[in-house]
């Protein structure tokens, strides 16, 4: 299988992972009145109130799924963006530079987001 075929397969798989976890995230954040679930916003009030953020952060489920969603969404989004850019037929050298830049940006954001998920878990446990 060629490299881009493999990456495309991962793009589709990552899309399905994003579908599940972003679906959950959107349900918690933006369908909280239509689908109220006490386990998702245990302190009541708005989903982004610190009490709810901390309560979700205390669990293992949310920090782990945040990191999974982060990785899958970054790969899905940045690989999709790379495909769009490559359709403009940049020269081979520019393609390589773009590929590396997007990969580095993705890794950097993954590092920041993962740190945030772990650190927020610790902050929530101490609170």
């Amino acid at each position: 299988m060629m490299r881009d075929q493999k990456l495309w397969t991962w793009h589709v798989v990552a899309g399905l992972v994003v579908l599940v976890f972003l679906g959950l995230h959107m349900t918690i954040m933006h369908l909280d009145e239509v689908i109220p679930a006490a386990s998702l916003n245990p302190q009541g009030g708005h989903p982004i109130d610190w009490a709810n953020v901390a309560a979700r952060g205390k669990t293992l489920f949310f920090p782990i799924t945040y990191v999974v969603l982060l990785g899958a969404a970054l790969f899905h989004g940045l690989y999709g963006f790379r495909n769009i850019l490559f359709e403009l037929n940049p020269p081979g050298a520019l393609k390589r530079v773009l590929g590396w830049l997007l990969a580095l940006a993705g890794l950097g954001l993954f590092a920041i987001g993962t740190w945030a998920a772990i650190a927020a878990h610790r902050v929530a446990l101490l609170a």
Partner: protein
Amino acid sequence: MLKTRGFPNRLGIQGWAFGGRWGPERYLYTLHRITGLGLLLYFLLHILLTSSRALGMEAWEQAMGAVTAPIFTFGEYLVFVAFAFHALNGIRLVLVELGVGVGKPIEPVYPYRTSLNVQRPLAICAGIVALVLIVLGTLDFFILD
């Protein structure tokens, strides 16, 4: 024969936006790209903003307080709408890629029949579910909240 001048994407950016007579699915493709780029831009900023929760309650409340203006709420609503469309259209694309709902291969005998018409019910179903999600989101954003 069209001259490609060595560029397979002959029309460039124009080729993304205008689908000519390729039918509704071609415009779903354009919308998929637009919503995908919008979601990506939002997501990159979202990672940086929500990382403030790692620094505790004050940092979190300060960060969230900076984005309470109605324009941000409307922006978030657009993100939700983009998500609903991109997710449902994405499911349709995966199903089509797996050969679901595209009909059986037929001999290319005149008068030719496009498989796009066979796929149309799938696109309509995806559109209906996306619309239901958007209606629920609209209720949550502007009426129940």
